[in-house]
């Protein structure tokens, strides 16, 4: 840190005259693509992902590189983004790969510190609080992240969230924002929640009907845009306008519900996973059993974020 040369001021100031530059990681995931398509209207977008991003807007620069490799680091140091958006592993849509996730997050945080980026926005998830018998109490941002006991994917996402939390005091010059999103759904998303809602026949747990919070993909993009504004920092839950029981959400989707008892559905999932029929594991069933409700009051008060798409509208838009 001490030996680092001050940034080339003149070059940065001319860049700023044009537009601020934002780096988006996991940009080829479905949420990353939605984000890039919106952000490129007001920012110079540098998209980074190991996967291709063929349908990107023309002015989005996409680097098909691994963050852990020198090529990516050289590129980022050269482009010197002012703002960084880190899509947490929860939104990455790839199977859990603990070592790679943690290493690339650590590399990225080091890069953010080295280039002196002004802002780091991390997309985390409200699922990390962990659905449990007591999680229906509109958890605040200070609630512990307890979802990792059952699933490796959640444990990875919690590790990333914690790394970024320690980054708050490690690099106080960078304004860091963690957005913990409830289930994000939308027409362009291929995540678990959206695919679940698109099913015509849906399996649920017999005798359980948890309350669900959903947020529209466009509202998430709005939240990211608000978080990118100067002088905003902290951890925020991002929620949709209301919540509803799963059964009524599925009724609004006109899905045919197939309630199965837990002692059948759990082992069925384990078997299907062993036969490579699904990537799901039975730890996901807790979402169908317990409500996990979070409080979005802090985001409303400090970020000025209020979801604009009603739950009904969101369910229609899922497609």
């Amino acid at each position, binding site marked *: 840190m001490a030996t680092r040369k001050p940034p080339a001021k003149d070059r940065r100031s001319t860049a700023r005259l044009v537009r601020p530059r934002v780096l988006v990681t996991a940009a080829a995931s479905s949420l990353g693509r939605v984000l890039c398509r919106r952000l490129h209207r007001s920012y110079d977008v540098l998209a980074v992902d190991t996967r291709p991003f063929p349908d990107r807007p023309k002015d989005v620069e996409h680097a098909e590189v691994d963050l852990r490799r020198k090529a990516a680091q050289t590129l980022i140091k050269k482009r010197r983004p002012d703002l960084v958006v880190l899509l947490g592993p929860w939104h990455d849509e790839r199977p859990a790969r603990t070592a790679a996730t943690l290493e690339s997050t650590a590399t990225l945080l080091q890069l953010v510190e080295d280039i002196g980026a002004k802002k780091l926005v991390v997309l985390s998830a409200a699922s990390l609080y962990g659905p449990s018998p007591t999680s229906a109490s509109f958890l605040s941002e200070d609630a512990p992240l307890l979802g990792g006991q059952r699933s490796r994917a959640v444990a990875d996402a919690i590790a990333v969230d914690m790394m970024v939390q320690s980054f708050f005091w490690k690099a106080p010059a960078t304004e860091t924002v963690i957005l913990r999103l409830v289930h994000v759904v939308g027409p362009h998303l291929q995540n678990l929640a959206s695919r679940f809602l698109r099913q*015509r*026949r849906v399996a649920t747990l017999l005798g359980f009907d948890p309350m669900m919070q959903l947020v529209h993909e466009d509202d998430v993009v709005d939240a990211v845009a608000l978080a990118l504004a100067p002088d905003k920092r902290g951890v925020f839950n991002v929620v949709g306008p209301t919540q509803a029981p799963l059964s009524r959400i599925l009724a609004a989707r006109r899905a045919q519900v197939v309630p199965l008892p837990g002692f059948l559905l759990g082992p069925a999932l384990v078997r299907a996973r062993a036969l490579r029929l699904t990537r799901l594991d039975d730890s996901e069933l807790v979402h169908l059993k317990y409500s996990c409700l979070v409080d979005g009051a802090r985001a409303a008060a400090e970020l000025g974020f209020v979801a604009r798409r009603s739950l009904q509208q969101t369910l229609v838009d899922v497609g």
Partner: protein
Amino acid sequence: MALLPSSGPVSARQDFRYRRVMAALLSRVKDVLAGLVDPQLTARIDALPRGNLNEFGVDPFGFDPETIKLVAPVLMLLKERYFRVETHGAQHIPGQGRFLLIGNHSGQLPFDAAMVGTTVLADAPRPRLVRGMVERWSADLPFVSELFVRAGQIVGDPTSCARLLNAEEAVMVFPEGAKGINKLFAHRYQLGDFGHGFMRLALQTRAPIVPFAVIGAEEQAPAVADIRPLARLLGLPAAPVIFPQVLPLPLPTRYRIWFAEPMEFKGAADDDDEVVAGHVKKVKNTIQRMIEHGLKRRTSIFF
């Protein structure tokens, strides 16, 4: 979340027929159940405050007033025919705004909570829905957990309570907790230690406290002993030996429920324990006095 492996698309006609049959069946069941409820009670359920409901017909915690219409026949049967509840002081129940119901807990099974809730719904000057606090393990029970949530009962948690009170709801708390409900017959009508949580909640949300006493629930399931090692083994709060337990039903004792005037307390929620203990003692003494008065007035346990 689980995705069912798709087994081919459902034909639209088949789907439509299935939906129509299900909808017809459901509305028939609802009509039958609604026919069992006294129309006056239906009117009172319809008059419950509905300001917190969203476009899906539920409040933020998942309560749906229509569910009350389905459980009301059973609860009213218990209240009117089985326990034959006698209510005193119902005029003290506030018609609007937040309040905390604080009372004695007894009877091994929480019929006292159900009867107080039903009494407030049916006999208060204006109908109010009481939000009870249920044990957290009830969230693991299929159907029961769903029914509790839809009927407005929530897993006990101070933040949820504060949220409900701030939304001008009525919350019922038994400060004795599980120790109160599991007490032995020899200790009947002796109040156990009161926790301070309810008082801090009342101070924090500036909610008045309505004390109540239930007479009659202690005798519904007289426990002569508590087998602690068995309770530990089964992970239960208590393993009472109930005499004369022939059925899983409680004995048909007559309930007498007494409500006192609302009590208001001033102070900060984070006041020292001694200060809060003083407030708690006042509430406890009020309940104790009501119990003694109620017992003196009672001529028979069953009639």
